[in-house]
């Protein structure tokens, strides 16, 4: 089984709001001292991929759309036993919309041996579009299962556990299939071993450009344009309850809730 995990690198989502700035001309966040990190749902997707490889055998392939900085994400996947790492990038891609990202991923997968299962995070922690995974399924003409928490082989099909109203459901799909992954106790990301991190630095990252991908230009045309990005004014209006200790503050809070008729 060839399992492809698409990973996204994002600006650290835990940057405090007070440090978050936007460049008014480029309409992009200013990175400042913030790190770039692997999106957390990508990590869950990678974990599902590792577990699936353990159950079914085969190859685990990590794919990322991004510039050289994204190699860090791929190295982490290699350290977590990914067999191949592929990065697709063209400096002309400054503002790819979700459909264009899905198209690039589909062509990158096609150019590197295809996939039986493609895993992505349900949505990223930066722009939170939630579009790329299902659009990639359409690109590949494959079924899509969203908010998956895990998967296992079931004959020539895949049995996927996914979040559903009031619990979970099990869904069976033929291969190839695209799964978008949500966080769950069943897919808490594991940490790489130190020796594997060292090994990963020596493994190659295959870089694909526009020429390798055979892109359809009409699919790269953006459907939307970002016309503004700004930091909203958020006045903190928090009223702190005073008191000498915890119980005193609790009493003051109960009084406040009664007086204001909040309860």
């Amino acid at each position: 089984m060839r399992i492809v995990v698409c990973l996204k690198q994002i600006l650290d989502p835990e940057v405090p709001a007070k440090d978050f700035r936007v460049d008014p001309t480029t309409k992009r966040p200013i990175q400042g001292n913030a790190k770039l990190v692997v999106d957390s749902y990508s990590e869950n997707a990678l974990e599902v991929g590792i577990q699936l490889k353990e159950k079914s055998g085969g190859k685990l392939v990590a794919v990322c759309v991004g510039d050289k900085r994204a190699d860090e994400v791929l190295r982490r996947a290699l350290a977590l036993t990914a067999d191949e790492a592929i990065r697709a990038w063209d400096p002309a891609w400054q503002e790819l919309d979700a459909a264009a990202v899905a198209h690039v991923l589909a062509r990158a997968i096609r150019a590197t041996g295809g996939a039986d299962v493609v895993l992505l995070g349900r949505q990223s922690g930066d722009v939170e579009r939630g579009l790329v995974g299902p659009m990639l399924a359409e690109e590949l003409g494959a079924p899509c299962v969203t908010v998956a928490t895990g998967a296992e082989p079931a004959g020539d099909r895949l049995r996927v556990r996914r979040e559903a109203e009031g619990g979970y459901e099990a869904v069976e799909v033929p291969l190839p299939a695209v799964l978008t992954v949500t966080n769950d106790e069943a897919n808490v990301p594991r940490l790489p071993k130190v020796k594997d991190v060292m090994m990963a630095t020596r493994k190659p990252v295959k870089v694909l450009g526009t020429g390798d991908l055979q892109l359809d230009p009409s699919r790269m045309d953006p459907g939307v344009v970002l016309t503004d990005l700004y930091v909203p004014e958020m006045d903190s209006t928090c009223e702190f309850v005073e008191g000498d200790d915890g119980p005193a503050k609790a009493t003051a809070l109960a009084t406040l809730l009664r007086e204001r008729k909040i309860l």
Partner: protein
Amino acid sequence: MQGVLVFSGQQAGQLTRAALEALGAGRRLASALNEELLALVVGADVERAAAQAIAAGADAVFTVANPILAEFQADLYLAAAEAAVRQVDPRLVVFTLDSAGRDLLPRLAYRLNAAAVTEVTDFQVDGKVVKWIRPVYGGKAMAVYQQLRERALVGLRAKMHEPAVLDGSGSGRVVPVDFTVDESTAVARVVERIQATLSGVNLAEARVVVAGGRGLGGPEPFAELQKLADLLGGAVGASRAACDAGWVPPSMQVGQTGTIVAPDLYIAIGISGASQHIAGIAGARTVIAINKDPEAPIFKRANIGIVADYKTVLPTLIEQLRAVVGA
């Protein structure tokens, strides 16, 4: 290309809250664009939900009725929605991003080669141009998008839009969509449903939510939170950190990608306030935060704050509130 078509989900003949939110926003959009508000109702039975959509202000309701559409199934509903959009040819298609909306919108946008905007919390209409406004970077910034295609599919963030009111004065028409489908379209098949053992008040609908985070330090304190929630007739929620630690099941996760809640009162205990958590409580009326770190971001969102170790606060608070609510 004319009109604002709203995907209007139903459960047993009743439009869902998500559908009413989308119809409410759809009405405002249609009026501002001076176009018709159109509803799409899909299911085994569509009459009652279609009548509700008209009562909610739709000028016309397009229906897809088929026994195999009794339960939501993404592949089947996607085919139905695609047929409807091709027949109706609307300028905008509006979804609320509940689980069905999240499944349908991206794939439908791909098939129709339409612009796609998600998590929309606000919009501005100027002539025929709409500016779609949504939070990004966990609410630390707001982004404004404009569509570059004639048709856009718009996903509204749940619980952020005023729902339509069923006032019964509408007089819209009901038009069946020319569409046939059979089971073979359902490629992904549900083979088993696993109910989580949930008890008590539904988190999404609760008027009071008591939620715990990493600061609780383990699963045991959630029993104390449950006591407080029971006292107030509320539900217990948790931050993603508490769920990922395995202290409580993920069904209790409150946040942008967990359950989005909009209670009258939200009590956050030991929750630092990661952006995605704050985004999930944007609709809460009053937020009380109890945290020992005065710098915790949750206090930026909270209306009332207590800086203290929750362990020293909770017993007295429960005791005092028992007197307030007269239990």
